[in-house]
């Protein structure tokens, strides 16, 4: 069962929680959601009116926290730690998991050095244990660890919440893919036509040769 199906129920649960809570208890809902080990998507919760109304109130830092989990990375948190609530270990782990997903959005081959810098990890063993236990075994990425080339080759990565500005490039990629697929289908059809034509010509040539053989036989006899 892929990650989206797994977290669908969780999203519904936290959206309902957000709709029925206000103020300080809403902040708790946000902390609970950003700590839950199986939740990696926060856009739906972010769009609940009660959450949006936190803006400008004494709890707006929790709205900022939720936005960080929807689109930010561990480095983003570190650079603005002063104006965000202290994260608990479960939140830190999740933000680092989400950071791996963000890196996987840009590249399919993630260098260890970049991963270690991004995740604040000091050695290969610790990095690989994180990628194995918290990412691959959590089902958010699939891939292979290459120690010789010191990189992590990503075969699959769960999608993070999209920022509005990402839509354009996504549509562009889909358009390119569609065009490539159409061209591929066209060239396959051309190949099929070419093959048919060639086989017709071969058959015709073969027939001519056989007729010629017959003629020669007759003339000999």
């Amino acid at each position, binding site marked *: 069962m892929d990650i989206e199906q797994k977290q669908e129920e969780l999203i519904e649960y936290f959206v309902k929680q957000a709709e029925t809570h206000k103020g300080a208890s809403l902040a708790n809902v946000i902390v609970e959601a950003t700590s839950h080990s199986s939740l990696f998507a926060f856009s739906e919760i972010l769009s609940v009116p009660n959450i949006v109304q936190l803006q400008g109130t004494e709890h707006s830092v929790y709205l900022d926290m939720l936005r960080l989990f929807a689109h930010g990375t561990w480095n983003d948190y570190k650079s603005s730690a002063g104006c965000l609530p202290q994260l608990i270990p479960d939140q830190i782990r999740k933000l680092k998991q989400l950071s791996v997903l963000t890196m996987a959005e840009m590249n399919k081959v993630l260098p260890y050095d970049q991963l270690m810098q991004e995740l604040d990890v000091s050695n*290969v063993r610790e990095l*690989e244990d994180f990628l194995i236990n918290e990412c691959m075994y959590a089902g958010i990425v699939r891939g*292979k660890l*290459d*120690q*010789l*080339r010191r990189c992590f080759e990503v075969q699959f990565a769960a999608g993070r919440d999209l920022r509005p500005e990402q839509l354009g490039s996504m549509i562009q990629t889909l358009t390119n893919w569609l065009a490539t697929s159409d061209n591929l289908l066209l060239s396959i059809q051309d190949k099929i036509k070419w093959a048919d034509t060639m086989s017709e010509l071969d058959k015709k040539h073969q027939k001519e040769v056989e007729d010629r053989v017959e003629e020669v036989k007759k003339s000999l006899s």
Partner: protein
Amino acid sequence: EEQVLIIREKLAELYESEQQWSRAAQMLSGIDLDSGIRMIDDTYRLSKCVQIARLYLESAKFAAKNDGSAGFIWQDDDAVNAEAFINKASFLVSNSQQEVLNLQYKVCYARILDLKRKFLEAALRYYDISQIEKRQIGDEWIDEEALQQALTAAVTCTILAAAGPQRSRVLATLYKDERCSKLKIYPILQKVYLERILRKPEIDAFAEELKAHQKALLPDNSTVLDRAMIEHNLLSASKLYTNISFEELGTLLGIAPQKAEKIASRMIYEDRMRGSIDQVEAVIHFEDDTEELQQWDQQIVGLCQALNDVLDSMAKKGL
């Protein structure tokens, strides 16, 4: 002979009541089951063979509890004798209509295979026993607890069996049997089936549930469990890594790099793992079972599947 038989059975009964299993078994072993003088029917022969094998097994189990703690493997005569009598019973059981006796034979046979560390064969027999539908055979009641024990024994033996394709098939059968999800041992079955690396705390918790002979030492001073777990983790690592240094592999498996290399080379040689070892660089290169072009096909299939899932989701949402 008749009188001798009666005395032997009486003496065996007394030894059994004093839990002197081996002596009770030896007493019954003296009965000449192939005597030409007296007519002995096959059912009697079968029941005696099974009874003797069970007594030897009890004795072997009892000995393991004591010797096992000394940490030395024991090629116990009891296990050998038990197997000898269960093999005799094998020729008789196919014609037997005695359901109780047949069940006792099956349990005995599974336990002997387990004792002799033929874990995969033992697992298949335990699993067969766990699938018994009848809840009463003769005047014996088969309760859920007994079936669960047989199922747990099947899972345990499969986990202890040497990693490889056959074990994977049995693991898949057990993992898909929803009765297993209720077993205490299920979490480790799941991880083993999903080919996930097992960490030391999980292995120690699993070791708590093992029988003495399953914790006995092998000639190379490692235990059956150690070997099974290291091989499993090595296979699991081969699914995660393109290549890994033996230094790191040793750390990951919790063993010395040299030992990791030795076990890896044996598994590659026995064709239970695909890969190659570069001793100069002290690195192992894991190979995928599937060729690159097939991997390409698989990735494309996965991609199209994911695309279909998106389209299905859109259809479901009326988009």
